[in-house]
């Protein structure tokens, strides 16, 4: 058992990955549900009320994981797209396409929850602080990737064009991030920086559990999505008819 090596190349073929993903989805779904239940319970009932912000700080439990996922998934998407392009591995490109939607949704959630949190914390829904602005730009990058792929009919070209765009975006992300920070300090927006409040251990653990829940959710959803993409693109392939039947 211990000497058996997993043949990664085998699972780079959609025909072999499709059933594997099908087996993995239930596991990740169950873990997601459990982690969400535990995390939300700790977040709502165990974590104490913050003495400065009251109950409204609890939005952090979804806001921070969503923001992190938005960023991680962009990098992951670019890596998969690059692998798919460099090694001509269709599955990598399909993964990138599947991840892009989930990443965009998380980025959107982090923007919405951020502005909903901003209302009680800062008194306004939106401030042009460095983090919110760069998240907004990240959202634009996702939108660019998704709309580029959506408007190319030839899936092979869509994969590769998306890869170029994702990699260019990846190089640009740090430049954009630092330029936005400098822009922000130039314009004295720093008065609005999020007040760092002391986190009780239960707060931190709720956040980390929900972070893990978001990861598991992403894996489960991306696998479902990638299975849909495989079925769409390989609809002519004989193996699919067998696998579905």
């Amino acid at each position, binding site marked *: 058992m211990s000497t058996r090596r997993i043949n990664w190349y085998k699972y780079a073929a959609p025909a072999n990955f499709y059933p594997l993903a099908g087996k993995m989805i239930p596991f990740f779904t169950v873990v997601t549900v459990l982690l969400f239940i535990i995390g939300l319970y700790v977040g709502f009932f165990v974590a104490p009320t913050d003495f400065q912000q009251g109950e409204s700080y609890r939005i952090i439990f979804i806001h921070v994981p969503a923001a992190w996922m938005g960023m991680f998934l962009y990098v992951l998407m670019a890596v998969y797209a690059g692998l798919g392009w460099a090694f001509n591995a269709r599955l990598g490109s399909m993964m990138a396409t599947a991840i892009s939607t989930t990443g965009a949704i998380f980025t959107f959630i982090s923007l919405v929850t951020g502005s909903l949190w901003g209302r009680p914390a800062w008194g306004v829904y939106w401030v042009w602080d460095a983090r919110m602005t760069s998240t907004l730009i990240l959202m*634009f*990058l996702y939108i660019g990737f998704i*709309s580029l792929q959506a408007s190319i009919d030839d899936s092979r070209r869509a994969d590769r*064009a998306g890869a*170029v*765009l994702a990699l260019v975006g990846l*190089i640009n992300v740090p*430049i954009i991030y630092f330029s936005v920070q400098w822009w922000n300090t*130039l314009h004295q927006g720093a008065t609005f920086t999020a007040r760092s409040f002391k986190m009780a251990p239960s707060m931190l653990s709720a956040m980390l559990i929900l972070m893990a829940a978001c990861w598991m959710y992403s894996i489960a959803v991306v696998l479902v999505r990638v299975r849909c993409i495989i079925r769409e693109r390989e609809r002519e392939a004989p193996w699919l008819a067998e696998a579905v039947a």
Partner: protein
Amino acid sequence: MFGWVSWRDLILAWRHRADVLATLFFFIIVTSLFPLGIGPEPQTLQTIAPGVVWVAALLASMLSLGRIFGNDYQDGTLEQLLLTPQPAYLIVLAKVLAHWLVSEVPLVIIAPVLGLQFGLSENTLLIVVVSLLLGTPVLSLIGAIGAALTLGLRAANVLVALLVLPLYIPVLIFGTGAIQATVNGTGTKPWLLLLGAILVLAFVFAPWATSAALKISVE
């Protein structure tokens, strides 16, 4: 070969001068709309001038991106160019240079005149020109990536805006930063140096990405 590609694009642009002028007038009209929309108070106009000039320059340069490769793609010239033994990097660079000369340099020349409308001082106008000179080549270089990716697609013009505008943001920030620093009397030099750094980066990487994108689109 490099010179030939650029020269050919310049001749083609000269034969369609109306297109070039349209971009220039677009730039002039957009910048003139802002005082009408915001009001003629000199104080306000001075504050918004750097942003207005730069945003208008971004939009104007974006309008002409389709022309970098569009016609050559349709009549098959682009495919022939890519088949030549010349590195695609140089061909892309030549075409980007032509695009910059045709579509961006006129904006840089007219910008000080528009700056006068916003009550900027002579010293500031100089920085407007310098920052545009450093920044507009980056717009052409990055824009070429978007143009290459969207070759021959439906609604390519709108799409290219979605792809390229977010990538323009650092240029916008540093370009306006330089002008504002002059207005406020804080140091201009760091902003110009940053713009220069971005220009160098874009010069090295962007044509490479563009040629990769061209090969994908032409295939």
